[in-house]
């Protein structure tokens, strides 16, 4: 299977995606941002469709849209009651725009399903290189702000009281999240990207009690999902995102059961 270049690309990209998603996911869960992550992926869909319409790489359109909107959301700030509703509105707009751009761009339907549901064969070596670069940015910046991000994410009140620059931190985090969403969408598709960015970390919370361990467990769960998913998809010819979804949901529910048994 790994003698095919497209499978090599898929495995390389998938591994990167799993690592990035596992790490970022821990902060997404701690910051209660699952919902926003979902919205960012819909915005990513609109961006990818826009990219196709403009004749760009879908990834570039995605980056453009998700980055701009993540900064916009950061500006919406802490007024959380209004935030939920604004996010829903933005979501609706994003999906609408995505559909419009796709129909305006006279591309075939398989391109659209690729964006929405992800694909294995669509990943070129050049995509992989771009993904490596983006992932490197995410990893380096995260390592740099790690201690601050950890404090702000796991104890926002304590961090504010200690005078941490929490506003700036949350904008930086959202931009990193935008990058991660765009990268991850390449394989699982924008419709299912929140799977990798939320479920492994949500499960990890029940097994680990330090941030470092949670990251370790979350990365393991997402790596297993992606690797096994890619293999099963290759063997059965069914979509890879289906398998990833099932595997991650299994991890999540076993974590809940594990928690029940412990109590």
């Amino acid at each position: 299977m790994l003698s095919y270049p497209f499978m090599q690309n898929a495995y390389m990209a998938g591994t990167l995606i799993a690592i990035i998603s596992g790490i970022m996911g821990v902060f997404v869960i701690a910051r209660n941002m699952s919902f926003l992550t979902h919205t960012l992926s819909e915005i990513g869909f609109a961006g990818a469709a826009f990219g196709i319409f403009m004749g760009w790489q879908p990834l570039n359109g995605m980056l453009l849209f998700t980055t701009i909107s993540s900064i916009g959301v950061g500006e919406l700030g802490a007024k959380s009651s209004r935030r939920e509703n604004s996010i829903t509105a933005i979501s609706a707009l994003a999906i609408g725009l995505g559909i419009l751009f796709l129909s305006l761009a006279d591309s075939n339907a398989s391109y659209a399903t690729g964006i929405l549901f992800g694909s294995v064969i669509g990943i070129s070596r050049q995509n992989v290189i771009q993904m490596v670069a983006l992932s490197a940015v995410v990893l380096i910046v995260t390592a740099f702000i790690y201690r601050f991000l950890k404090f702000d994410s796991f104890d926002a009140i304590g961090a504010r009281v200690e005078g941490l620059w929490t506003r700036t931190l949350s904008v930086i985090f959202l931009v990193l999240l935008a990058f991660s969403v765009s990268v991850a969408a390449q394989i699982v598709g924008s419709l299912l990207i929140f799977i990798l960015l939320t479920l492994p970390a949500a499960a990890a919370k029940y097994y680990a009690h330090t941030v470092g361990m949670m990251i370790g467990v979350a990365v393991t769960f997402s790596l297993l999902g992606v690797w096994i998913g890619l293999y099963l998809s290759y063997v059965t010819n069914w979509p890879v995102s289906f398998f990833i979804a099932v595997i991650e949901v299994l991890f999540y529910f076993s974590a809940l059961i594990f928690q029940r048994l412990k109590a």
Partner: protein
Amino acid sequence: MTESILKLNQLAFAYSDKQVFTNLNYDLKKGDFLSIVGENGVGKTTLMRLILQELKPTGGTLSFLPNRQAVKVGYVPQFRNIDSEYPLSIQDFVGLNFARVGLPWLNRAERKRVSDILAETKLIQMRHRPLGQASGGEKQKAYLAQALLDQPNLLILDESTASLDPIAKTELLDLVKQINQEQQLTVIFVTHDIPLARRYADDYLFLSAGHYEAGPIAALTNEKVGDMDHA
């Protein structure tokens, strides 16, 4: 005990339209254990936020002595959102306060500091327990340990004992009092529990609407606090 650490001079504060207090004067001495008492809503938390410089005075001054850099404030806030599913261990939670430029993981000296402070706050045995599953008293001790981690010389406890049972209250304040005495840590303890303030504080600052009083704790007589003494 003559050295001052914090001076309030004709301090006034108002939220956009609501005056909270005016002409507040106080001279906080180094090593003092000051209780700030008063009914809910008189502005105790607001005063703490002024000290933390989260808010700016609308009148008068608030100054740290000998200078701003010399005073490091540790604050245990009144409200914290830690639910029963909160995953981090007590140890990891306390270590969060090492938020400074550095490697992602704590170095040896930092790990040593975390375990010293856990020992000091009597949390060492339960340090691996998830904070979400700790009792109210243990949670407050963890908040205290986190605030003490980077060695403040002014510690503020904002209603930290409000939700605790009598035994946990005593345990927490015994601990704070011990550190206050051994390390000359200046403490501001915000409470509406007068008997508790009497038991631990050296001095008091009593806030009520449009009025305040201060003095040694022995002078905090019942007629002064009026019907507040039921706490």
